[in-house]
Each structure stands twice: as C-alpha cells, then as structure tokens.
C-alpha cells in the first residue's frame, strides 16, 4: 500500500537530510590524487597556548611577508615556490654565501671563504666550513653539495635544472670539505648561483634525499637544514610556522660565526590585513610588523614600545638593495629616442615626485644602483665629478649639465617644512636623502622635444612629431602601495603638469606584458637589482646584454627596457673576463657601465626601495636599526638568522 508524503513529512525529511549533509560536509573526506609522504607534524595533546608551548618571553613572532603558506607540508625548496620566508630561508637553511646589504659584506655560511677560479674561469673550487652538522645530527660534507648538483642535473622538474645542465661539466668532492666544479664554458660568476639574495641554490641533505625515488615530488617534511633553527610545528592551514633553536646550534654556521641565537622559538605568522598587524603589535602579540607608510605612522603614534628602523624622520628602512624608478620600453617609439628619455627625466621635480611617492622619505640615487651598502663609497661618490661635468646636447650647439647636488637638501627642507624633525648633519642627510639627482628643467625638456619634432597644441598639450596627441600609458601592478605604483603615480602627475597626456595602467600581468614588450613605460625597476654586497655590478649590467634582447612580442631574457649598446656589451664582456674578487678592476668597469647607463637613460633611477618595519621592544631589543646596523633589518631576508644571536631579551 502506497502512502503519499505530506508537506510536513517532506519538510522534516528535508531538514534531517540538510543537517546530515552539513555535518558530512564538515568532516574532512578521503583525498585522492598525488599524495606526498612525510612524517606527520608534531601534534600537541592540548591546544597550544602562546604562553604554554611557546613561552612568550622566549618566543619571537614575526609576520610572514609572502602571505598564507599555500603548501604548508611541503618544504622541497628546489621545486617551484614554497614560501621560503616562513623561516626556511631565514632560520633553517644556510647557503654557501649570503649578501648583507647593511654592511656591504658577503657572509660565508656553509662555505669557509671565497671560491677560487682557474685563470680561464673553466673551473672553481669551493671550500666548505668544517664542524657543521644537519639539524638531524648528520655531518655536513662535500658529498652533500656534489649530490645536490648531480640530482638537480638529473631531474628536469627542479627549477635550477637547466642552469646546471647548461653550465656544469662535472662536480667532484676533492676531499670532505672541498668541492670542484668543472664548467662547460668560462663563467666567472658561476658561484653567484649559491649566493643568497632572497633565494639561491640550496644544498640538499644527501642522506635524506638519496632514499627518495622521486626527489621532485618529495615533500621534505620535516625540513632538515644546517641553520640554527629546526622545524617545530606548522599550521596545516598555512597560518604560521614555528621553529625551535637547535640544541646543537653550535654546529650551524650561524652558531660558529656569531654565537648562540637568543630566541628559543621563532614563529612566522600570517596576517592578511595591515590593521590586524598593528593591533597585534599594540598588544605585544607580534614583534615584527611590516606595514605601509600610513600603517607605520599609526603604529608609532599609538605604541610606547614600538620603534622604526630610523629613530627620526624618515623612519623607514632605506637600505634595501634595489633602486626603484621608471623603465622605458626603448623598443617602442618615441622611447627609443635618448632625447625623449632625458626630456621626461628633466620634466620631473624630484622634490614633488618623492613627496607624492613616499612623503619625501626615499634616498635618491642618480645612477642605476641604490645609495646603500658599498655603492655610495665604491660608485656614487667617486662618480660625483663625472656627474657634475656630464652634459646633454640640447641642440643648436647648446649643452646642459643636468646633475643637481642640491636635490637632497631641497627634499630635507621640504620635510622640515612639514614639521618633521631630524638631525642636520651632512652624514645624516647623505644617508637619508642621498648625494644628488637631476635638475627640474622643463625648459630644457621642451628644447629636447622640439629638437626632435615634438610640438605643443593650442591647449599646451604635447603632440608627437606626426602631429597626433602624445599619450603615455604608465604600467604598474594593482597594489598601489607598492613602489612601482608609487613611482607611476608620481611620474604621471609630473608629466601631466608638463603637458603630456599620461595615465596609470594597472595590471596583474606586468611580467608577461613587460617580457613581451607590450607597454610604454613601467614602474618595474629601471635596472636589475644589484647584489647589495661586494662591489661587483655584473648582476646589474649583464641584464643590458644585447644577447638577451628579443624582438617585441617575444619574451626578452634581459631587462624589460630592451635597451643595449655596443659600449655596454664591451663592458659586460670585460667584466666577464675579470676576476670578481679583484675589487679595483671590478669597480673601474662598474663605473664605466653606470656612466653608459646614465648617458642613455633607459630607465630613470629615482629612490632606493624603502620598507616600513615596526619592531616591538617589549620582549626583544637590540634590533639592527639605523644607529646600529650590524645586519640587514628584515626578518624575511635569509640573513635574519645572523641577527638572532644579537637580540636581547627584556625578560618581560
């Protein structure tokens, strides 16, 4: 006998079914597809309290720069992107060498000193540090480095596979602490693939990886490194990763070089929003915050225990090894014309420009390296006389000397007029605002453009030589607090004032459009970032190598300006044939390279990259601030581990 279901019965059935589905959905189900094997992370029996499992006075908490970790149980840093600033690069790994842009020195970590090249640069030997052990207790030897290179060359899934296949003929362990590389062609900068500047080739623990049948898929969990910290635990959602000081920290290069790290635990925590970072630091739940300019101001105004990198204006971290500015697509008219590039440079009032971009807090550089580390002494100061005497041809036999040594003082005066207080010493002004920049000379810019057939219409707007309106589309990313967008906003405003129809164009695909040359002007760095340590500018200059240039539409392998010159090619060739450790020769060639770049101005260098760091001194002090820059100041950089022995606990 059948029975019809009434509405009430149906509603009940629907409610029970819906409840069941909701409950079932909340229970994690079995997973299919590729699974990576690895020991489970440590599971505390009770919920860990930051004051329990991690005693706060022994714990340092910093924000992870690159966001929530997407693959928290995978530490295979040799494949793709693994959020290495969650403590892997900055605490647990030690490379052969690291750059320290605060001191300008290269720090040998796993290596005991510089590499030695053969005179023809066809081979090099690397001395390894003795007495180092992996965090699981196994000794670190030459076999690990040899195994790493052999493995990277064997599997094409590794990011560095192509580089080593193209360059390495053989790698051998001369003894337990010496490795010899034989190269396929001369390469005087081969060792820089092991020089850590926010990423390099790391060394695998042979005793772990050799047990894996597929090292590309291997999750390498828990991470084992030779750094002073080892993995404690992590959030499966990627919100935090906790590291614990190794009991045998003395067998890490950090311990050997600098002594015992002070925090017992260090946690890298994810904050999606700047506001929560500020609240967390105000309540002493976050020791290191990375903020925007306004965020840092808000933090400093509210907190009694927070400090910035600089104790006075401009407060910011101004020693990041990167020069920001404007990059021209020299493969596209009219930016293929040096006069046009210089006209656009001289149409900028740098005081207004830095005021718009960074509230006057950036350190100027007139050349294509930032004013920090070794570069002021090695390059910017020695180039002052040349910069003062440098002239450009305005036409009709007229020349113009564009360099302006008063620019930093004008920015300082502007900052004072806004009520900022800071020391008035020459040393401070140089460190904070630089040594000089270029004059604001709209009349010279006008002459340069008119020399090339540009003219203004009745409304005072610039027309191209063919009579059509001149429009400049300035490409930058979508995060408007980033320096590409800050430079874009400032340049567009300046060029609009000069009579050019300029506009900002924001895109998430800056790299794709940049690489294929589909843009006018970009906020991408005007030159490749230098190492930040040591005088060698090969990394900067080589990106202007004509060999890397591709036609528009194809991906260029050099810098996106697609500029090169015969003179620059010659300098690069000479640099390749020069021992990178011959400082005098390297500096002489570097100066010639920078002169060539300034003369042609394929991109306008403006101010060095600045960061906005807030340190809480409630639990930890002796941060590497501007008054005592013993190490680079960021917790996300690889060298943060070298800061840990110098931190002091307040005992709070």
């Amino acid at each position, binding site marked *: 006998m059948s029975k019809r279901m009434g509405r009430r019965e149906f509603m009940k059935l629907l409610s029970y079914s819906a409840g069941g589905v909701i409950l079932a959905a909340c229970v994690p189900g079995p997973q299919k597809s590729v699974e990576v094997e690895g020991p489970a992370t440590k599971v505390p029996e009770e919920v860990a309290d930051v004051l329990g499992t991690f005693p706060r006075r022994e714990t340092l908490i910093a924000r992870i720069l690159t966001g929530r970790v997407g693959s928290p149980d995978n530490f295979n840093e040799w494949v793709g*992107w693994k959020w290495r600033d969650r403590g892997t690069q900055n605490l647990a790994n030690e490379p052969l060498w690291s750059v320290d842009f605060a001191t300008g020195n290269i720090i040998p970590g796993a290596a005991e000193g510089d590499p030695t090249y053969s005179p023809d640069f066809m081979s090099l030997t690397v001395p390894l540090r003795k007495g180092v052990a992996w965090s699981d207790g196994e000794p670190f030897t030459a076999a690990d480095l040899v195994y790493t290179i052999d493995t990277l060359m064997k599997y094409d899934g590794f990011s560095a596979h192509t580089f080593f296949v*193209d360059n390495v003929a053989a790698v051998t362990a001369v003894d337990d602490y010496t490795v010899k590389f034989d190269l396929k062609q001369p390469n005087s900068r081969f060792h820089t693939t092991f020089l850590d500047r926010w990423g390099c080739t790391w060394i695998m623990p042979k005793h772990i990886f050799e047990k894996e049948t597929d090292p590309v898929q291997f999750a390498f969990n828990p991470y084992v490194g030779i750094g002073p910290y080892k993995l404690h635990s992590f959030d499966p959602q990627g919100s935090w990763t906790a590291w614990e000081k190794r009991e045998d920290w003395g067998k890490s290069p950090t311990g050997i070089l600098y002594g015992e790290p002070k925090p017992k635990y260090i946690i890298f925590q994810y904050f999606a929003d700047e506001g929560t970072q500020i609240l967390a630091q105000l309540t002493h739940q976050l020791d290191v915050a990375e903020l925007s300019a306004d965020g840092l101001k808000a933090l400093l105004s509210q907190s009694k225990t927070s400090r910035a990198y600089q104790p006075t204006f401009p407060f910011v971290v101004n020693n990041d090894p990167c020069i920001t500015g404007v990059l021209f697509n020299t493969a596209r008219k009219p930016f293929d014309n040096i006069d046009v590039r210089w006209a656009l440079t001289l149409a900028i009032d740098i005081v207004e420009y830095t005021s718009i971009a960074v509230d006057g807090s950036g350190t100027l550089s007139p050349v294509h390296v930032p004013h920090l580390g070794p570069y002021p002494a090695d390059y910017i100061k020695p180039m002052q006389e040349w910069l003062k005497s440098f002239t450009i041809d305005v036409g009709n036999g007229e020349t113009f000397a564009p360099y302006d040594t008063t620019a930093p003082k004008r920015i300082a005066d502007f900052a004072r007029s806004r009520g900022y207080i800071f020391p008035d010493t020459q040393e401070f002004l140089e460190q904070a605002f630089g040594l000089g920049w270029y004059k604001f000379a709209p009349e010279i810019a006008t002459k340069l453009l008119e020399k090339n057939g540009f003219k203004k219409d009745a409304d005072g707007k610039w027309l191209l030589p063919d009579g059509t309106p001149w429009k400049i589309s300035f490409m930058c990313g979508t995060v408007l607090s980033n320096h590409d967008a800050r430079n874009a906003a400032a340049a567009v405003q300046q060029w609009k004032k000069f009579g050019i129809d300029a506009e900002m164009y924001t895109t998430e695909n800056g790299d794709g459009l940049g690489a294929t040359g589909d843009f006018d002007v970009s906020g991408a760095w005007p030159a490749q970032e230098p190492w930040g340590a040591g005088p060698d500018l090969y*990394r900067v200059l080589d990106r202007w190598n004509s060999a890397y240039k591709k036609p528009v539409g194809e991906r260029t392998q050099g810098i996106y300006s697609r500029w090169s010159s015969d003179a620059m090619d010659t300098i690069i060739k000479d640099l390749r044939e020069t021992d990178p450790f011959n400082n005098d020769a390297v500096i002489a060639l570097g100066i010639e390279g920078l002169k060539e770049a300034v003369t042609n101005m394929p991109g306008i260098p403006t101010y060095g990259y600045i960061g906005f760091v807030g340190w809480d001194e409630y639990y930890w002090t002796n941060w590497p601030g501007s008054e005592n820059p013993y190490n680079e100041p960021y917790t996300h950089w690889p060298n943060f581990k070298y800061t840990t022995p110098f931190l002091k606990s307040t005992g709070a």
Partner: protein
Amino acid sequence: MTFLKRYLIPRLFQYFLVIWLGITVVFLIPRLTPNDPVMRMIGEMRGRGSTLEPGAMDGIIRDLTQMYGLEGSWLDQYWAFWVRLAHGDFGVSFFQFPTPVNKLIATAIPWTLALLLTTTAISWIVGNIIGGLAGYYSRKGWSRTLDAIAMVIRPLPYYIFAFSLLLLFAYVVRWFPITGGASLGAIPSLSWAYIKDVLWHSILPALSLIILGGAVNFQTMKLFVQNTNSESFVQYAKMGGVTEDRIVSKYVIRNAILPQITGLALSLGQIFSGALITEIVFSYPGLGMLLYRAIINGDYNLIMGITLLSIVGITTAILVVDLTYPFFDPRVRYN
C-alpha cells in the same frame, strides 16, 4: 509520469547543461586573460629577488609548461581536464606545485562550510523571525527601534563593520583573539580543547556576518510582511475573528517567507565562493582567499576546482528550490 516528463527531466537536463556550460566557460576565461601561470611563477621568483639566469630562462619556461600540463592545444587540455574530473581529480595546483587541488580544497573547505553554513542559517532564521514580527507590529516602538538600528547597520561597508568589531572586542576589551582560525601552536584534532579554541576564534567573524546578514534579512522580511499584511485575505481573517497568533504565523509570515526561501537557497549555493573579506579582516582560513590567490596567479586547476564547487552548489540550490517549491507554497503545482 507527467511530472517526470514535463517537469523533472527537463529541469535535470537544464541542470547538467548549465553545469557543463559553466565549467567550459571557467576553463576558457583564465586562458583568455593575459595572466600566464608560467610567467606568474617566474615573475614571483624574480620579484622575490631570486637569481634567474637569463640564459636559462627558456629552459625554465619549457620545464614549467611541461610540469603544469600546459603543453598541447586547449582542446587537448580540455579533454585531459574531463578525463581527470571523471576520476575525481582536479590535478595539481600550479602555484603550490605539486600539491593536489583536491588537497588544498579539502583543507580549506571545512572552515568555509562551518563558518558560512552556520552564519547564513542563523542570520536567516533570526532576521526573518524578528523581521516578520517587526513587520506585523510595525507601529510598535520596539519595531521602529529595531528598524532604525538595521537602517544604520545595513549600509555599513562590511570591512569597516568587521574591523570595528575587531577593534572593540579584540583590542579594547580583549575578549576575543585578533587573528586566525585557531591559536598559534594549535594542531587540528578532535579534542575538546581544540574545538573550544576554534569556536573562540570563530565568534567575531561569525558575529560580523550574522549581524550584517541578519539586518538584510530583517529589513526585507519586514517589508514583505508589511505588504502581505495589507492584503485583503489578511484583513478578512482579522474581521473573521481569527486569532492574531494564527494570522501572524499562518497567514502573513508563511506567505511573506516564500521569496526569502529562494534567497536562502541561493545564499547557500554561493557559500563555496568563500567569504573573502572576512578571511582578510580576521586572517581566517577558507576558500575565499584560496580562490582569490588562484585567480591572481593564473592557477587554472585550482580555479576550476573551486568554481566547479560553486557552479554545482548554485545550480543544485536552484534545482532543489524548483523541485520543492510546491511543498512550501501549495498554490504551485507541477501540472
């Protein structure tokens, strides 16, 4: 038979057609944008300062294209996608290579479901009950007060409202944590301590969604009830001496709630898109940020995985509403 032939089968056909079309569009759109996942990865590595040797760049691009399964025509990739999907596999995430998409979704989805199912249900039930009563008794003082409060809350931008809650309850009075889905050091388990900790962390995100969602439901239900209240059948019931309780529950709210049921079904279907701003303000885990990051990075497989859930969720919700409407509204008949 008539029900099957004239109603169920056409709607099931429409259901599967919409899902297929939705998936095909989602397959095509990321590929039509200039966001190339290989260049995004290289850009990410370059942007973070990694040294990518210029001479090795072509090889890196070739290797990444191969690893991501982006070789071959779009048709080849489309076919490979359906073959994988038939095995319940979305492939691996490009940006979080080689983590499977299934695993990423499985990790995030319990947080999204637990938060949004609960808050959607609570805000719907509470908003509609109070809104219904406020609509019926719209001349009472308490009804006007509630209406005034809702008028203030509803236009507030969600970010501002959520951050204000955070500021008040996590910073000023410090009753709740500032950030995260659980405490630092807490590893997921079925222990009471962990569950308690998760609940504690979820209160502010949930409260922000319930209050704003509840205000929306309150205002719409109040309007529906006020309109229904002026209908002649309600007036007739009043004149006929039907008790007020019965008029409210059986005559007014029951009729006014019908569009709200459709709204609830659509809200439940949209849950799989996550709550991006909630996840940003409270650094809360979930599908919203996962999807946002996938779109930004051109992570085709992950985009497909999450949007497939969303497409199926919304179309299923519409189908369920279509099929069950006669049970809520006796005036609707399939034939």
